[in-house]
């Protein structure tokens, strides 16, 4: 390369939610500096939530992200209930799982079909892909729609659903509605199985790497709303202790905060969840996965796509289980009695753990909030992965190829850049 | 008094079965979301046994009633209106073929015969108005295809009111509380059972099939006392039956501005009113543009588009909109239908989120003589 100074400027990275830039400086055949520049115009949610009544919080935090509003509503509700000492009871607990299944289905389906899979198949968009893979696209859209339907069952609409309140839900669905949904879920089950099998056939770079995985872990369920925080390196803590082990900090090149676990980058999201909770999958889901021949835990980051497919399958199986046992409750929520205190909530958003801490006052107003979204937690890991992947690809490769691989690596994390970011420009500087 | 048959309380199920047996889809009052609404009725246990209500301006709460009664409540937010004049429905459909030709086709609902249990006197009075408007073309219209399809084969089981709400004033309009006509069967609910009377051939047949004995004279007397008591309980009233001339002389009264300070112009009064018939049209084309449906939807004189003319709104502000509602309902309605548009059901009082009371407003405007 000598001292040739190359600058590649990709104006906008497609198929991620938001805008950011990637700066890579290559010196003597090695990556000298790599920065995933995320420019998220700050929206200051943590600040304007201060002083607001608890009733409004689920509706407010939902607006942080249009792709995973349920996750925000769930983490915040749990945190506030924790602060107030509210016990929502078994019905609410089950229905929250069902509600969350809806979000996993819709979010994973959008990511797989609209954002990531076109990468593996070499298309720029789902619209191009649909011309060649009409069946697969239709299947993806159907799964997405069933996820939306579950969210609508409780929340009337799939983006910023309106049914959640601290303590539970405003309204319980009628039995007939749940039965109608159940029928659709049964029809979707073979689609999900087919999706797992198909995803396993997609050709992905075979490039194992070492990383730390972090997720929730529950004594007997695949994790969603509850559990302890565990890592592939033996961490096992209460969610309230998050800040004792994880450090959040600002880097000059990004408006999304970065986070490290005991000084190291770590991975959250479907691959981390699956790697750490394989034994919590119900048998049929494990069987379908086994038939693909792909082994988990996996250290191939590109197996994230398959992990998502497995979670799609799981979400449908779980939703069927809950719907089959559905009973109208006496009341769909627990009465809430505000009291001053701090509470924590950590749930598994489609993209990984979403951690909330809420300090409340006696009137039930918010005193202070900390929100740590999955994408900022993954940021350091993404930079680590980019370094690794680009070097393994070969830095002498044409800029275009470097850029494509870089984008593919980033998209593989399903970065929810709305929880954080914007334009992704790739600037490769070769010195 | 052979006029009334006696249906013991536990015989109500037999009536429901008889109706179902004749092919009717049955609808009756049920509790939903904190109010008593007309909903599909599968069993009589779904009726609001033991429930009642408390109502006031802008106020409605379910309350405890009498375990032995299923109809011991005053009317909820709906009358028969939504069952016949649907809140939103397609009127016709058009398909455009490749050559640009248009094929139009009316959409007439496949309406199975329906039986409604628990219809009140005010509901029937309102129904007569809507029949005149939608079916008999009171203002020159051809019969409304959708309304007519649903009206055909409607079987009405009326009930005389036994529990008035504080917002009822049907005695003052002359429309209740006693049901006087327009029903197929009429019930008076007593603790031990029901007095039943047929009001049509179809009603007579159903009644005959139930094979009931006659009601005792004591029961008939008790029912009469119950009805009189309900009428006496009503405290609200309008200043007169025909207020057309009086109201149109008060178009500049300051009270229009006064009400408008509180009125939200939300149209809830008109939407719950069983006689209001205004509707708007909407076009709903398919994305591909080849076909389209033309809908109608409930509308009220409180909406901006109700009086919109290009570049100009006849009623841009709330005083004009509220005045339109009141002068039409209690005034010009006489010119159009030969009676007032108010049947005294009190729904507009209860369901006005601002708690505006039509009897109070009319009183204030006509104060100092009509």
């Amino acid at each position, binding site marked *: 390369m000598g001292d040739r100074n190359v600058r590649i400027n990709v104006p906008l990275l497609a198929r991620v939610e938001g805008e950011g830039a990637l700066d890579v400086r290559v010196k003597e055949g090695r990556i000298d500096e790599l920065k995933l520049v995320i420019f998220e115009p700050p929206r200051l949610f943590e600040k304007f939530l201060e002083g607001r009544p608890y009733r409004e919080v689920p509706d407010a935090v939902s607006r942080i992200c249009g792709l995973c509003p349920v996750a925000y509503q769930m983490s915040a509700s749990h945190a506030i209930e924790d602060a107030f000492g509210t016990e929502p009871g078994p019905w609410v607990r089950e229905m929250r799982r069902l509600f969350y299944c809806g979000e996993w289905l819709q979010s994973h389906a959008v990511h797989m079909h609209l954002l990531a899979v076109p990468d593996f198949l070499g298309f720029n968009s789902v619209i191009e892909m649909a011309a060649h893979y009409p069946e697969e696209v239709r299947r993806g859209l159907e799964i997405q729609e069933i996820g939306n339907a579950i969210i609508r069952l409780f929340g009337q609409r799939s983006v910023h659903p309106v049914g959640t309140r601290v303590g539970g839900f405003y309204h319980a669905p009628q039995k007939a509605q749940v039965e109608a949904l159940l029928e659709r879920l049964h029809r979707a089950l073979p689609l999900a199985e087919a999706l797992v099998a198909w995803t396993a056939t997609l050709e992905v770079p075979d490039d194992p790497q070492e990383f730390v995985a972090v997720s929730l872990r529950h004594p007997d369920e695949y994790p969603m709303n509850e559990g302890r925080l565990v890592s592939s390196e033996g961490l096992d803590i209460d969610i309230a202790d998050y800040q004792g082990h994880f450090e959040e900090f600002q880097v000059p090149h990004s408006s999304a905060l970065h986070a490290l676990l005991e000084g190291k980058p770590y991975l959250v999201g479907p691959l981390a969840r699956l790697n750490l909770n394989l034994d919590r999958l119900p048998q049929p889901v494990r069987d379908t996965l086994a038939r693909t021949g792909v082994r988990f835990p996996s250290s191939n980051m590109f197996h994230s796509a398959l992990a998502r497919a497995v979670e799609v399958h799981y979400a449908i199986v779980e939703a069927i289980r809950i719907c089959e046992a559905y009973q109208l409750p006496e009341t769909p929520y627990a009465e809430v009695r505000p009291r001053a205190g701090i509470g924590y909530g950590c749930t598994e958003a489609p993209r990984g753990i979403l951690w909330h801490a809420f300090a409340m006052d006696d009137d039930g107003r918010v005193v202070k909030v900390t929100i740590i979204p999955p994408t900022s937690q993954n940021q350091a890991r993404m930079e680590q992965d980019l370094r690794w992947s680009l070097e393994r690809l070969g830095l002498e490769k044409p800029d275009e190829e470097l850029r494509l691989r870089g984008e593919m690596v980033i998209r593989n994390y399903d970065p929810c850049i709305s929880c954080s970011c914007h334009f992704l420009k790739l600037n490769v500087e070769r010195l | 008094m052979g006029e009334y048959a006696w249906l013991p309380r536990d015989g109500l199920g037999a009536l429901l079965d008889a109706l179902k047996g004749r092919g009717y889809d049955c609808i009756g009052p049920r509790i939903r979301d904190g109010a008593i609404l007309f909903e599909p009725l599968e069993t009589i246990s779904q009726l609001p046994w033991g429930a009642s209500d408390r109502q006031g301006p802008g106020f409605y709460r379910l309350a405890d009633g009498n375990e032995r009664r299923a109809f011991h409540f005053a009317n909820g937010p709906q009358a028969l209106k939504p069952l016949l004049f649907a809140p939103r429905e397609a009127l016709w459909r058009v398909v455009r073929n490749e050559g640009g*030709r248009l094929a*139009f086709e009316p959409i007439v609902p496949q309406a199975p015969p329906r039986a409604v249990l628990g219809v009140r006197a005010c509901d029937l009075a309102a129904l007569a108005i809507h029949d005149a408007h939608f079916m008999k073309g009171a203002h020159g219209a*051809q019969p409304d295809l959708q309304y007519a399809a649903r009206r055909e084969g409607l079987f009405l089981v009326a009930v005389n009111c036994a529990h008035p709400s504080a917002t009822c004033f049907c005695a003052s309009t002359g429309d209740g509380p006693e049901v006087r006509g327009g029903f197929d069967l009429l019930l008076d609910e007593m603790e031990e059972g029901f007095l039943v009377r047929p009001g049509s051939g179809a009603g007579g047949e159903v009644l005959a099939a139930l094979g009931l004995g006659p009601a005792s004279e004591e029961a008939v007397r008790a029912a009469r006392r119950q009805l009189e008591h309900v009428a006496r309980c009503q405290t609200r009233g309008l200043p007169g039956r025909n207020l057309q001339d009086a109201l149109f002389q008060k178009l500049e009264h300051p009270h229009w501005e006064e009400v408008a300070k509180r009125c939200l112009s939300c149209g809830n009064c008109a939407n719950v009113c069983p006689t209001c018939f205004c509707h708007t049209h909407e076009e709903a084309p398919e994305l591909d543009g080849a076909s389209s449906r033309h809908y109608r939807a409930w509308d009220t004189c409180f909406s901006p588009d109700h009086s919109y003319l290009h570049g100009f709104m006849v009623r841009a502000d709330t005083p004009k909109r509220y005045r339109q509602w009141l002068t039409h309902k209690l005034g010009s309605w006489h010119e159009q239908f030969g009676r007032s548009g108010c049947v005294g059901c009190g729904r507009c009082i209860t369901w006005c989120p601002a708690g505006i009371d039509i009897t109070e407003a009319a009183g204030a405007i006509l104060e100092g003589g009509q």
Partner: protein
Amino acid sequence: MIPVQYPHEAEIVERIQESPSVFTLRLRFTDPQVHNAYSFMPGQFNMLYLHGVGEVPISIVSDPQDGCMYDHTIRAVGRVTRAMAALRQGDRIGVRGPFGRGWPVEATAGRDVLIATGGLGCAPVVSIINYLLARRQSFGKLTILQGVKHSDDLIWREQYERWAQLPETEVHLAADVGGPAWPFHVGQVTALLDRADLRPDHTIAMMCGPEGMMRAVTHELIERRLPEERLWVSLERNMQCGQGNCGHCQMGGHFVCSDGPVFSYPEIKSLFGVAGF
């Protein structure tokens, strides 16, 4: 009777651009049965439907005797009418109608007829003018007064000029704002009344246009001792159904679409000009 609860297909036989924003559609029903059954009187209107967009009430301007085609002259002002402006000859639209009560043609017998219009108000009266001219012997003098905002707004100038040539026919034009090629009066229509030679006890007046203009003319005519029941106005209100069902067009107790749109002055006098009705 043709069902009017839903539209019937009509073909645009001809399209005429009258001015930059005004165009005329000449229509024919495509279904011969509908075509044969359809008849109307001057002053009535149709609901015209543009595919996928919506319906608007538009007067019929042609002569009822000219039974094979129906003309509608439309000013493109808003959502539906602007989109309609793109229609071309051969295109199809939907038509429901005819609706409403038209002009009192019988009452013209043996009388002088005064027609006063403003703006595009001329559309609904063109039909009655044509109708009367075809029956010239049955009435007396015809006086046409037409006012427009700006001289450029005048459409059908040749038509007015042709009418002006007819025996016992007077045409007076006025524009609020004149222009270089405007030989006529500049000012209000009401001023034209001075030029017309009216015989109050023999005259029947028909008016159409903005309500302010109609009120002004009405007052002038009453001052000139025209009996109130011989003053007729055509009103406009929002209309969705066209047939006395949707309630939008009410003016007091009247459904303008079916009781009108043409009213005699005593019928509407009490609310004419009252803001809000």
